[in-house]
């Protein structure tokens, strides 16, 4: 079964459609959330059920509005006003909005939509209104695709709403590749899975016959690097998400290869090789298999991650005696230590915005997900638990996903997300346990 969305035509089908007076509303005024500021009170919004424009569109009109609302609510930045409070109904997508009715229930943002289904073809239109300014915010958008990609269209609508109100890029139309886990700690079964960012549309990419670890999306989301024990020894594989075809990367006998990540170009992988009790970092040109050694110390050097410009690599090393974070040029050479707080630091991941490094911190028997600037300043811990590990960035650099393992014999691993502000910690619903998430770029 193909795991590629049948919605590939969606991007081409995105179209801005025209409006009458007032459509060219500037993105300013009261309807604005500054994510960097402490948002205490979520912004109230209303998403009336979308208007079905064909006989077959009824159910999908409801479902689309529900996913849009869930996306926005799930950020913690927005609060949905329930339909039971509505004074107005929206019975015509093109009719003038009764602002007073929405103002009366304190809906600051109003999202309206219309849905047309013809066979397998689905068209979704939406408009966003700034209720208190009494004007539309941005232009209406229309998305076309196939009905089995309906959730993606809802995510695209929500991304546009989020983006217009926050001024940030969206992240709802994205996927996460992760390790799906079942069974007790001493007999855990692991297999690769890919899902929508919200846990929907889970598809399994491997079986659980051998241990698989730490899948990482390519910069375009079409390939995944991961580590598998299928030969009995850890080796790095590259898997095409669409065809589920995979191949092992070259490695020398008697070594272990793990902790791979793509470069921003998608042509190079940076990873670790363990041999003779020593673990160092290498990079490899994927096409030719040519590799370059980037570190050369007796310490454990692993978990490398490229800067978004590809020029530098952040990694962890215990060369000082404990795990700490370092940055070196992507070609190797002198590394600069950036972590100096109490405890141990591992699994650094460079933000897609380039401004922050997320990491796992271990201190006094607790694990944390944290962020710091690339010079190590302004460290902030976002979570704390028995075992939080392995952050990954949302494509807009505003949200992190990670795995939380609970303690004891019945312990299990669950994916969580948290804002870079430390707010809005929430589990991601998956059919089984989950670990090692890797967020895709925003889909085209």
């Amino acid at each position: 079964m193909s795991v590629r969305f049948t919605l590939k035509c969606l991007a081409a089908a995105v179209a801005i459609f025209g409006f009458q007076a007032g459509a060219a509303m500037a993105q300013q005024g009261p309807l604005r959330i500054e994510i960097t500021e402490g948002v205490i009170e979520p912004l109230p919004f209303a998403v009336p059920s979308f208007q079905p424009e064909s006989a077959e569109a009824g159910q999908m009109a409801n479902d689309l509005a529900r996913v849009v609302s869930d996306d926005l609510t799930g950020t913690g930045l927005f609060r949905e006003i329930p339909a039971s409070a509505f004074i107005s109904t929206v019975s015509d997508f093109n009719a003038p909005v009764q602002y007073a009715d929405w103002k009366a229930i304190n809906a600051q943002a109003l999202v309206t939509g219309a849905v047309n289904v013809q066979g397998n073809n689905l068209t979704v239109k939406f408009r966003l209104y700034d209720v208190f300014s009494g004007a539309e915010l941005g232009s209406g958008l229309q998305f076309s695709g196939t009905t089995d990609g309906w959730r993606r269209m809802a995510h695209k609508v929500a991304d546009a709403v989020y983006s217009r109100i926050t001024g940030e890029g969206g992240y709802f139309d994205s996927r996460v590749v992760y390790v799906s886990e079942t069974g007790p700690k001493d007999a855990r079964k692991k297999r690769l899975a890919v899902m929508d960012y919200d846990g929907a549309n889970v598809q399994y990419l491997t079986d659980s016959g051998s241990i698989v670890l730490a899948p990482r999306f390519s910069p375009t989301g079409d390939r995944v690097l991961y580590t598998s024990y299928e030969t009995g020894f850890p080796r790095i594989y590259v898997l095409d998400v669409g065809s589920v075809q995979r191949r092992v990367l070259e490695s020398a006998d008697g070594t272990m290869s793990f902790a791979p990540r793509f470069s921003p170009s998608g042509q190079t992988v940076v990873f670790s090789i363990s041999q003779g009790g020593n673990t160092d970092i290498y990079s490899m040109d994927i096409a030719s298999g040519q590799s370059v050694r980037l570190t050369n110390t007796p310490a454990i050097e692993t978990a490398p991650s490229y800067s978004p410009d590809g020029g530098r690599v952040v990694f962890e090393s215990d060369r000082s005696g404990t795990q700490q974070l370092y940055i070196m040029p992507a070609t190797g050479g002198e590394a600069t230590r950036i972590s100096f707080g109490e405890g141990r630091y591992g699994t650094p991941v460079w933000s897609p915005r380039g401004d922050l490094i997320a990491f796992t911190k271990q201190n006094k028997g607790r694990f944390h997900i944290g962020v710091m600037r690339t010079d190590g300043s302004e460290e902030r811990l976002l979570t704390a638990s028995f075992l939080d590990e392995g952050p990954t960035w949302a494509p807009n650099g505003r949200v992190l996903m990670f795995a939380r393992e609970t303690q004891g014999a019945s312990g299990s691993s669950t994916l969580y997300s948290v804002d870079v502000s430390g707010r809005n910690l929430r589990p991601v619903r998956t059919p089984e346990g989950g670990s090692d998430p890797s967020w895709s770029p925003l889909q085209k």
Partner: protein
Amino acid sequence: MKRITTSTILIATLAVSACTNPGRFGGEDGTYVGSAAPVNTGIVPGSANDPASTAYFQQAIGDRVLFEVDQSNLTATGRTTLDGQATWLLTNSDYQAVIEGHADEQGTREYNLALGERRANAAREYLVSKGVPASRLRVVSYGKERPIEVCSNEACYANNRRAVTVLAGGLTS
């Protein structure tokens, strides 16, 4: 694959010592590839009182060594165990071994993979120093992926921080 058994006296001695070992890791399925049973010794081939058996290696000698938190140095007890493993491997020269390194769950996944490799390699280097040919010994690390005990305290962690010498089928030459 023909193996000549050692003297009856040695077998008897080892068999007694096997009996005094509680067989903590008993029940694991060995990959016994030994020869026909010697007669009149009371030894059941492949069982823990057959000194040429993998069960004997696991239970009487001990197939694993344990490590302190975040350490890969061998302990005195570990070295004694490995002395026994080296002697056995030199006697039973048609076996190869994979030394599996493990960590407890207190650590990040990648670091624990590297730490487990350090541990397995420490055991391998010790065996090589005692004369076991390096070509017969491979290492692999499972990091924190394969704990044998599942509680989240030191009682379990101590047994999970281990390097296990897993015998693999005899060489054919």
